[in-house]
């Protein structure tokens, strides 16, 4: 049977068919749907981890127990999990250990476009790169086999255009694989220096064997055509090359670490001019050059942002650079925005009004940085807001009296905010940390987390009490507030920022997009133009339902989008915003 699957769905299907027993992840675009889809297969124990590090540590534990285990993460998630990742490189895999890294060239939903192929090289493990959904499924299965045969973790490296593209996949049945059982083996699983010295030697020997496999594997394949141009390529770039350069000879790399050196040499000898087409880093290029082979890559192929067939054609001078249509008025940008009625709005409005220094974090609420809220100074990585705030607090000029707040979401706080907060308490910091508790991991599409009381497999579990948790760290000043109380939020933030001690404010209200919130009956509001003076006090909320009519000098609410949060009502001094009586 054939189905149209996204790359992420295909990886999940591959894990099912290959008899995987365990899978874990922390949500992160573009990888999120891998675990969401695995959770549909009851044969696999799947869970949302609190962060990528714990997901990989748990999966490694599952591999110790002889189970086939998979971890899915976005590229920057592997930075969080890098510590166990490198140790796992030495330890190897009793049960298969497959780490799926979904990189994001073009940064559609990320803070950088790091190329995680470099991780496989650094950790000296095997890496496969599928180029469509069928291969995403096939290579997931192959990864499980390579992992067990060579006693190595396998990095399955995909990118946004693999994760989020659909193509046709042939479905197969699950092949159950028995778990191997747990066995104590300290020389392998306990990486103290004496053991690690032995293991490193084995890792180098393993690389030699893997290179032999890479040379013999048909997932690295040569397709000779016109031999005047030979192109080495991998992953999604292969598809762009086939479309843009159908006449060229191609060496398609499916296993990109270790690279198949013999095949590369053979290909180089048989074509007149050798090229490499790859997104982001010159990963293959550097290796081929190190082999002493002349090859052209980043001299003509962009290393920044993603490629497409047009860019490849332009790079090979097959077409001229496209001239943009000369249109008189271009479309204004349409940035994403906090939703109408978003419970985070009041905190950002207050930060803006109080002119605070605000260190931010990663989630929907990063959008609070955009105008008109413009209420965020920094965003670095998951959990960074808290450490950043303390660093600024300690080192800014003494006569700089601006207050500082760190702003972080509930899920991000569980992920890596707690340690930063302990740092503040231990090191006698004075910053105020605001936790935006919308009771869900929202940006990636509403995944459960320790605060929701539900697991990925739909079971009830302990619901973390954020307030108690924070108080338990020994903090004296911890305050809960209703995030729809605009004035209350502002007063509380002002008071706590001025306090000469550390404090935490937890602003509560669930995400408006949660199914149970969408179902709730809601009041809707309109603006009485007789009373509206055009003062624009409601505009700085940045509510997408509110717009200002420059000609009439009046504000309007689009009732289609209004969810009745009443924040704008609270900003209006002229009672112009009224409930629609239906």
């Amino acid at each position, binding site marked *: 049977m*054939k189905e*149209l699957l996204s790359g992420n769905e295909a990886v999940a299907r591959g894990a099912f068919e290959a008899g995987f027993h365990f899978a874990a992840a922390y949500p992160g*675009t*573009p990888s999120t*749907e891998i675990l969401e889809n695995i959770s549909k297969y009851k044969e696999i124990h799947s869970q949302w981890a609190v962060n990528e590090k714990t997901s990989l540590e748990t999966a490694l534990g599952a591999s110790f127990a002889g189970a086939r285990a998979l971890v899915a993460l976005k590229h920057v998630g592997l930075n969080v999990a890098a510590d166990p990742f490198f140790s796992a490189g030495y330890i190897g895999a009793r049960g298969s250990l497959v780490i799926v890294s979904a990189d994001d060239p073009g940064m*559609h*939903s990320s803070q950088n476009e790091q190329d995680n192929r470099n991780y496989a090289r650094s950790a000296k493990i095997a890496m496969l790169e599928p180029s*469509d959904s069928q291969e995403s499924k096939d290579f997931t299965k192959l990864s499980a086999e390579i992992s067990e045969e060579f006693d190595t973790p396998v990095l399955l490296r995909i990118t*946004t*255009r693999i994760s*989020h*593209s*659909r*193509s*046709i996949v042939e479905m197969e049945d699950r092949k159950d694989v028995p778990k191997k059982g747990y066995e104590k083996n300290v020389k392998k699983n306990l990486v103290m220096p004496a053991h690690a010295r032995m293991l490193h030697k084995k890792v180098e020997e393993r690389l030699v064997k893997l290179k032999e496999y890479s040379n013999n594997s048909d997932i690295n394949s040569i397709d000779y055509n016109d031999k005047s141009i030979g192109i080495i390529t991998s992953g*999604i770039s292969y*598809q*762009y090359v*086939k*479309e843009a350069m159908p006449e060229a000879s191609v060496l398609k790399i499916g296993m990109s670490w270790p690279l198949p050196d013999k095949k590369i040499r053979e290909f180089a000898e048989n074509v007149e001019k050798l090229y490499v087409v790859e997104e982001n880093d010159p990963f293959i290029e550097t290796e081929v050059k190190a082999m002493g082979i002349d090859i052209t890559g980043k001299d003509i192929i962009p290393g920044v942002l*993603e490629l*497409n*067939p*047009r*860019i490849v*054609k332009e790079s090979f001078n097959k077409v001229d650079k*496209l001239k*943009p*249509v*000369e*249109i*008189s*008025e*271009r*479309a*204004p*940008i*349409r*940035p*994403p*925005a*906090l*939703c109408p009625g978003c419970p985070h709005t009041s905190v950002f409005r207050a930060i803006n009004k109080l002119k605070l220094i605000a260190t931010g974090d990663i989630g*929907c609420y990063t*959008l609070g940085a*955009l*105008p*008109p809220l413009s209420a965020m100074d920094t965003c670095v990585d998951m959990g960074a807001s808290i450490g950043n705030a303390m660093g600024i607090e300690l080192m800014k000029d003494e006569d700089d009296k601006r207050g500082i707040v760190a702003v972080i979401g509930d899920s991000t706080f569980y992920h890596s905010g707690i340690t930063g907060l302990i740092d503040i308490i231990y090191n006698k910091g004075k910053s105020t940390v605001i936790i935006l508790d919308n009771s869900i991991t929202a*940006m*990636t*599409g509403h995944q459960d987390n320790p605060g929701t009381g539900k697991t990925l497999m739909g079971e009830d579990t302990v619901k973390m009490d954020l307030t108690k948790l924070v108080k338990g760290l020994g903090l004296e000043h911890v305050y809960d507030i209703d995030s729809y109380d605009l004035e209350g939020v502002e007063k509380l933030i002002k008071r706590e920022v001025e306090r000469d001690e550390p404090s935490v404010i937890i602003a509560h209200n669930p995400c408006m997009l949660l199914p149970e919130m969408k179902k709730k009956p809601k009041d809707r509001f309109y603006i009485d133009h007789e009373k509206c003076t055009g003062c*624009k006090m409601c*505009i*700085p909320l*940045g509510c*997408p339902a*509110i*717009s*200002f009519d*420059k000609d009439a000098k009046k504000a309007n609410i689009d009732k289609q989008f209004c969810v009745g949060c009443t924040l704008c009502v609270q900003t209006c001094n002229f009672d112009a915003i009224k409930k629609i009586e239906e």
Partner: protein
Amino acid sequence: MVKRIIIAGVGGQGILLASDILSEVCMEAGFDVKKSEVHGMSQRGGDVVSHVVYGEKVYSPLIGEGDADVILSFEKIEALRNIDFLKKDGVMIINKMEIKPLPVASGLADYPKNPIDDIKKHVNNVIVVDGQKEAEQIGNIRVMNVILLGILASHMDIKKELFVETVKKKVPPKTVDMNIEAFNFGYSYSG
């Protein structure tokens, strides 16, 4: 022969459902098909684009500038935003709907005055429809995307029946009749 179609609009307009139906129809018709889109950040009221490519053998799921045979835009200025992707002799289908981006709503930017006229100066084959009005006449604003899909289908070389069958499968059972009416309206719409 490979055909390349772009569906553009604003998050929440049903772009992904429309491109799901479209790509499934292409598969049912016996073609190779690939579809590409982006999730995450873009779903919070940002612009959304879905690429669908079908033919005997499809390589790239992504369409480069100047390569789209048809662009279907659910919103006026999203057509403007994607105009560079259209082939010289390509077809542009525009829904007359206007959704103000936040910078426009908060007075930081202006909504273009005559985007459709501007596009017509550069594209010969432009079809304009007031999908919202037509959907309301059929009975529910929610069938707007199926009307637009119907117009798109009339510019493709795939049997109408295949579309009808797939629409029936993909929409809620209670709304089948209304959606088929909407599809038929779109399919015979001439602008």
